[in-house]
């Protein structure tokens, strides 16, 4: 079946618009699309989206993470092997994180990372044929916001929810940050790390994020105010 931008698509649909544009200019096809001999076919169920200039992708529901280069993820260190740490990021195999890819780390000055630590890192190498590789520094050798996340609480959610809350148009974090102070790191692999002053606040924050999955922007705003009033003790 033919599909155009904004439509609900199923695997096996094809988009003539992409092929037509592709003849004149360069087109970037993202996740959920695949070029075959005759057409560009859809491989995932969701909504076909476009961003200028000529970038197309399918926005689909997914829980399992497939590593992609350049994404920030949250992982748990599961093993120390020679000069690398093995980090579980939720993909089919663990990712490798080198001792030396921390800020200021040298052969003699090893970073203090233990098994079980939660790290916020960037995917440097992600290919279907290779083990993914993580780094905790940017291209200038600075750690930025990456590194070990101490204390706090980690929970899992769907990959869509991460994309939803990180969207600049989403009011969730905007509304929550006015209510009480907290720290948050969202990994594109469907893991969120949160840290607030008290246990009550942490639980409220976690519930607010998980509850926002199927809500519209307006509903999110009212939910945030509700949670804030309950937390403040006005309603029990």
């Amino acid at each position, binding site marked *: 079946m033919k599909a155009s931008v904004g439509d609900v698509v199923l695997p096996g649909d094809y988009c003539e618009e992409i092929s037509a544009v592709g003849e004149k200019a360069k087109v970037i096809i993202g996740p959920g699309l695949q070029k075959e001999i005759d057409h560009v076919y859809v*491989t995932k169920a969701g909504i076909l989206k476009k961003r200028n200039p000529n970038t197309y992708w399918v926005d689909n529901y997914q829980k399992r993470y497939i590593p992609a280069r350049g994404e920030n993820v949250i992982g748990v260190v599961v093993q120390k092997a020679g000069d690398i740490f093995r980090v579980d990021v939720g993909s089919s195999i663990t990712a490798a994180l080198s001792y030396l890819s921390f800020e200021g780390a040298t052969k003699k000055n090893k970073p203090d990372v233990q098994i079980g630590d939660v790290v916020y890192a960037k995917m440097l190498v992600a290919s279907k044929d290779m083990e993914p590789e993580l780094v905790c520094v940017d291209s200038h050798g600075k750690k930025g916001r990456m590194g070990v996340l101490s204390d706090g609480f980690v929970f899992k959610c769907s990959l869509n929810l991460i994309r939803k809350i990180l969207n600049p148009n989403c009011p969730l974090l905007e509304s929550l940050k006015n209510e009480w102070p907290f720290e948050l790191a969202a990994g594109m692999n469907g893991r969120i790390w949160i840290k607030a002053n008290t246990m009550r606040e942490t639980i409220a924050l976690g519930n607010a994020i998980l509850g926002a999955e199927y809500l519209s922007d307006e509903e999110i705003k009212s939910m945030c105010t509700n949670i804030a009033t309950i937390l403040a003790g006005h309603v029990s």
Partner: protein
Amino acid sequence: MGVEVDTKEFKLKPMKCEFNFLSKSDGSAILSQGETVTLVSVNGPLDIKMQSQSIEKSTLEVLFCTKGGKPSVADRYKESIIKQTCETAILGSLYPRSGITVTIQELEDYGGLLSCALNCTCLALLNSGLAMRFVFAAVSCAVDELGNIVLEPTQEQATSARALLNFVFESRNKNLLTGFSEGSYSESAYEEALERCRAASDLVFTFYRDIISKYSNVI
């Protein structure tokens, strides 16, 4: 071939579906077609044993559990049908050296269990977000004593029928993916059944699209 069929005269059993019925699996769906209900969970791509890894594509594992829980030869037959169908549909080359497991649980069987299981598997795969070449739809029909073709037979119709035919179609060109039958039937009956099922598969594809559009707009 050449059997003219009008789509409008068909009615399949009412279908109801729920996605993410299981919270822990990567993709799951529960589907009822009439009274028949199945639950499918899809997990993958996963890390699997070295021996079963394939360097060029993902390894698919299908497990069929009956209501009674006792495994039998008939279940292995169903598993192999579902496995072969899924293998053509899933783009396994995107996930080399990994495994995908599909677990099907029969909940109620009032006829048409296998086609319900196949449709439910397709929905669970859509929910899991695995890359697929196309979606597939299974339709069953029976040839009764008089040689008439009955789409989606009930349990009584199925037991009294001369033959039972099941077809699975893909969504791109409505080509036949899998076909299996039991009983005796004439060649013309087979061809008529094939065309009628092909036309009826449209209803299943429309159902898939409706389900996806229901949740796609809010995520």
